């Protein structure tokens, strides 16, 4: 733990961290967005309609 705290105490150029954070976000955002958009529509429709198919909902209007 001492090694870690020594290392952390002497980190320089901390400003770069939030730029790294932004890059992490943008990268993940692009990957998740592309993969999500490519999800089959039928599967998505099935999932989102599932909560209304519970024998409790009246006058269900599917999308």
């Amino acid at each position, binding site marked *: 733990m001492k090694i870690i*705290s020594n290392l*952390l*105490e*002497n*980190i*320089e150029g*901390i*400003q770069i*961290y*939030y730029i*790294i*954070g*932004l890059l*992490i*976000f943008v990268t*993940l*955002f692009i990957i*998740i*967005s592309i*993969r*999500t*958009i*490519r*999800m089959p529509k039928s*599967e*998505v*429709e099935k*999932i*989102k*309609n*599932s*909560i*209304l198919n*519970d024998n*409790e*909902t*009246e*006058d*269900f*209007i*599917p*999308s």
Partner: protein
Amino acid sequence: MENQKFFYDNKIVRLFILATLVWGIVGVIVGLLIALQLAFPVFNLGLEFTTFGRMRPLHTNAIIFAFVGNGIFAGVYYSLQKLLKTRMFNDTLSKINFWGWQFIIVLAALSFVFGITTSKEYAELEWPIDIMIAVVWIVFGWNMIGTIIIRRVQHIYAAIWWYLATFLGIAILHVVNSFALPVSLFKSYSIYAGAQDAVVQWWYGHNAVAFFLTTPFLGLMYYYLPKAANRPIYSYKLSIIHFWSLIFLYMWAGPHHLLYQALPEWAQALGVTFSIMLIAPSWGGMINGLLTLRGAWDRVRDSAALKFMVVAVTAYGMSTFEGPMMSLKSVNQITHFTDWTIGHVHIAAMGWNGGIVFGMLYWLIPKLFKTKLFSEKLANIHFWISTLAILLYAIPLYWSAVTQWLMWREYTPEGFLAYPNFLETLTQILPMYSIRVIGGTLFMVGFIIMMFNLFKTMASGAIVNDEPAEAPALVKLGARNPAQETVHRWMERKGVRFAVFTFIALAIGGAVEIIPMIFIKSNIPTIDSVKPYTPLELAGRDIYVSEGCYTCHSQVVRPFRWETDRYGEYSKIGEFVYDHPFQWGSRRTGPDLARAGFMGGPMYKNAAWHYNHFMDPQKMNEQSIMPKYPWFAKKEIDTGIIPAKIRAMQTLGVPYPEGFDKIAVDDLMKQAQTIVADLKASNIDIEPTKQMVAMIAYMHKLGKDIMPPPAAPVVADSMAMQNNQKEVVLLTGEADFAAAKQIFQTVCAVCHGPEGKGIPPAFPNLTDSVWINGNSPAQIYHSISEGNIAKGMIPYKNQYSEKQITQLASYVLLQLNKK
């Protein structure tokens, strides 16, 4: 496949609903009380248990954790079972969750009333209750994840992702922010100090909004809005993108609460950047909610539940646009510390959180009790009263905020602050506080109507505590087939796996923000002249914390001319290294106190002034809305705990000498005697062990270490005065007297009284024939211009023009003294 039979646990849902209603009305009533206290200080009731400083955290905690918290549990416990087609994992855990949470709420209410608080906003509870919260929260998470594991459906619906994020987010936030070193059962010190404490606290505070007031409500929206509208959510793909973006981004944005304050620039930039980015996922959620109603707006017309949900989602959209705008530095410099913040959070709390809870209850209770809503008409009346109440609450506060930012920054053509006395601004906004009371009253009336309606609904129906249901068992799937199953679907297969990914997304932002602030030494440059608090000052500081003074007074001066002219030198990070916890505050109902101890500065007041002010602020200035604190002169300092406090501070790194704990009480008494003697010179008798003495010591410590005492003699030499005096011709015009009277009543009357009779000998009578420094026009002009620093009278040449000082001298001599 054959269906399995099981029973939904409706009883636990009913208990949480009842708790929501009971604590909700309590929270609203306390909110109304503190709104009244700000408009009419008599509502502080003259009791130490009911002052604004103690009631305000009671209100915020009652609304957030009691009303909203129980509402979340009610919504989650019902929807989780239905979505996963299973009973809750363990009934005992459900009961511990319910009764444990209610026990915590009762303890919290009692601790606030008795002044037991850490002063960290929305995390004010002391360490034993913090531990209970952690235990009950883990029980909630255990029960929820257990329920996910024993589910009968393959898919984990979007609402549950939000519930998981809520559990994990709050667990991380609560644990990290609550680290404290106990001194006794009722007192602890945050392990973080100053700027570090501020970053951790506002990382928590901001994300408490995120993970207690936003993510669970998005989960509730994803379940109850489609159910109430009988329409599936508009876009499931959007819900995936908006979920991951939102939980990742939220954790980074906390420092936007500390812009222009004593915080490294990189941390402020981090907060602003991620706050602006938050607009996108937040509006993704709002759009998904509103578009769910496409083609079903006729149902909104007929259903109060849906109306509430529409207002809720709209308020969410408004708040999540307003919040990032307020985090822009140019906007933040004028909105921060004003009532804009209060208006902003109430749009969110009353509109978004209130709307979702009300909408959910109007839909859920008839369903749970197998009946119809007692009166749709009453529900609609509640809706319109509540919506009007939100407007009547928020608009006056926005108006008030605009008044504050214009008046605080206004300068005269001569280059002086146009309104140097804080009370001048406060007086202008008091009517807004009165209108706010009307808004709060309407909201309370609406709440009572809802309670009546819902209790009648419950009475007309019958709940089935163990509701029978059946569903096929969950079929376990094999290895992922990339062609048939997306990564997200694969993640959703196992609740624990999904939770791990959620935890990673949450933890990155927190780690990047918190770890460097705590560990990297260059972030907290120290200042050699800043010394630890003396035992008496520490005792005073603890009383300041206990009384919740931070709810009205900030202790951080931002680097703006209009702040440094009003309060003194701007604050530096190194000033706060011994502050466990920090006391920067988040709003200014009263003036900033960071420089209250700098003799010669604009905020300095002498011991006699503080004594009189604590005893009866309205006596010093009848427009003040500060509560009276006469018990400071009666209650004793707890000297028995002082050595333990010193030892705790030493453990936290405060450099008291070795063995100082053993002589700390002697040191306290020695310093107290000097204050007692000072007060005695003003004909005020008090024992050195009274809390008043400690409070005065603390007030005189604030800002003292970084501001050297004035080099000039504190009491003007009469010969020197005569040599330096300029010829003064008194002004006798009615306009001059009127202008002078206005200044006198807002500034001078605080010490000399509205009629100039003062409180001799501390504050001289200006109407008699006794003049300490002479009564020629030039001498009076000089006295006002140069002040009397030792007695707490500041040099008014720094605040008023020569003409204004001449007007004042004329008013004193020709109107008050009738010379």
